[in-house]
């Protein structure tokens, strides 16, 4: 399109409203950022600095040794690895189940389709905490207690993600499917060669949201993991709290350690996360 020559008019109202807007946003950002900043500085303080009143803002000499101490108190590396493994399995499972579920509900017609879809949707109305007892008994009876599988199995099929993906699948022009059928394309090939690549943004959003969900999961992993071999960072941190007892600076250092992978994750997928939560989230 040709660029239209714009007359520049200084709009005072606009500038004032911009200033107010950015000021409020800055204050909000600072408030949100403050706990993280406090965590970071405290993790580098000595005990007396950490519990001093009035509070000491910055350590006189950064106590990097805190990190070494904490790293050796608990197998944090193990926790992080456990979490990463569970997250990857969880994401892979969620993506596969969502894709298959959404494909069936959008492209196939079968008996009781509406009924089954409603059932899937109803699962969204049940709070996860309500299911814990049932899931716990199931996992125990399957002798899966204290395994990775126990951590991610109950949340593999998600009504919400199936719904979200189905909506996107249903927006595809039906002629694509028909044209593929005329060419003898199998449902399986059409799904993976056409549907999935064409909806990769949505699927990526689902992967990211489910990754974050699994990483932040606390109550369920805490219940089904018992040993350091399977514990995730969230419950590992809780276990560490009792050992660190009142050493606030160690607590903060531990928290910083478990936060690092998530920060890296956010840094790498920043754009997709904003798209996913902002766009895909609302749309879904």
């Amino acid at each position, binding site marked *: 399109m040709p660029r239209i020559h714009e007359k520049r008019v200084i709009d005072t109202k606009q500038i004032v409203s911009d200033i107010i807007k950015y000021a409020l946003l800055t204050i909000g950002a600072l408030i949100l950022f403050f706990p993280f900043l406090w965590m970071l500085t405290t993790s580098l303080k000595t005990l007396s600095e950490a519990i001093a009143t009035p509070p000491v803002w910055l350590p006189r000499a950064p106590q990097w040794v805190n990190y070494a101490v904490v790293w050796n108190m608990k197998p944090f590396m193990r926790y992080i690895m456990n979490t990463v493994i569970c997250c990857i399995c969880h994401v892979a499972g969620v993506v596969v189940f969502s894709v298959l579920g959404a494909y069936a509900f959008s492209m196939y017609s079968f008996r009781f389709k509406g009924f089954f879809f409603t059932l899937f949707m109803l699962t969204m109305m049940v709070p996860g905490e309500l299911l814990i007892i049932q899931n716990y008994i199931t996992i125990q009876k399957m002798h899966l207690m204290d395994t990775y599988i126990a951590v991610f199995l109950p949340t593999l099929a998600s009504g919400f993600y199936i719904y979200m993906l189905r909506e996107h699948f249903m927006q595809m*022009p039906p*002629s694509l499917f*028909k044209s593929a*059928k005329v*060419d*003898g*394309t199998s449902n399986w090939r059409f799904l993976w060669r*056409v549907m999935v690549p*064409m909806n990769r943004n949505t699927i990526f959003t689902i992967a990211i949201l489910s990754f974050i969900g699994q990483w932040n999961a606390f109550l369920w992993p805490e219940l089904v993991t018992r040993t350091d071999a399977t514990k995730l960072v969230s419950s590992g941190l809780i276990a560490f709290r009792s050992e660190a007892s009142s050493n606030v600076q160690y607590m903060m250092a531990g928290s910083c350690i478990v936060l690092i992978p998530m920060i890296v994750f956010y840094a790498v997928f920043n754009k997709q996360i904003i798209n996913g939560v902002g766009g895909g989230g609302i749309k879904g």
Partner: protein
Amino acid sequence: MEITLKNLTKKFDSVTAVDHVSLTIPDGKLTGLLGPSGCGKSTLLYMLSGLTNVTEGSIFFGDKDVTVEAPDKRNIGLVFQNYSLYPHMTVEENIAFPLGNRHGKDRMNARQKHEAACRVAELVQIQDLMNRKPKQLSGGQQQRVAIARALVKQPDVLLLDEPLSNLDARLRMEMRQEVRRIQLESKVTTVFVTHDQEEAMSITDTIVLMKKGVVQQQAPAREIYMNPSNAFVASFLGNPPISFLDAKVAGGQVALDAGQGFSVSGVADGAYSLGIRPEAWVPGHAFHVKVEHVEMRGQDQIVTFKLNGVQVRATLDAEYQANVGETISLDLRTNRCYFFNPETGVRV
């Protein structure tokens, strides 16, 4: 592959979209399914493809009854109005996609697929666009890709659903010649659906004109235009359209306005609906009419006047001086006039 339809019927609940259609679509020819929207022409095409199932009747491809055969077993190529290209694949991947569905001994390796894709790409003249994505192509180019994809598996029948309706006027002219050329070169039996009479008349070997699910006439373009079987066929074809007026025939004389008329032979006495093609009128002396409107088209002009109280259009040479309000004298070429039964619309 000759296609034979026997009593083919499609009902959607209470609506009959295609009503007992029996016809033969000739082998290796380009057949146009023509009709106003909602006449059942697309439904008929989709029944040929197998995507829409048949309520009654049967479809034969050659000697083989394919009425209940699945779409992929019919060896057809289908091009949709919106082209339905896969947006994430390149042109070559799009064209070769149907070949990837082959299994067993028909399985093709990457080189064979590439060669097959290149062969059809050359036919539709898109060999330079093989690495582009559909988004980077113009409408006409996308159409070519869609045709190439339909042709790559060497189908017995090529079905085109309103293939040119998404293109602008100039491109449509170009592409319809291309469709014709591709069809002639590939010699594939082709059926295409259109609501554009000019499109159908210009490139088809034979036209099947439909109305409300019923075939009105099947004939080559010249034949269907010159020899319409009923008033609907006569009115649907031709631009500007044919004019109808009530006429009485008595003793071989057709009486029109104010004592004006002409003589005919072989038409029994009685009341008729008389259809006069605009080009039936030529400058002359027999009819004196008052010009109401003149529409200049360049190569000719459409002159409107009243005859028997009905508006009649005539296409006259552009050089002929016709001014609004003046009276002009015209002759009528009676071979472009048709008599229809006023009740049934059937030609007499």
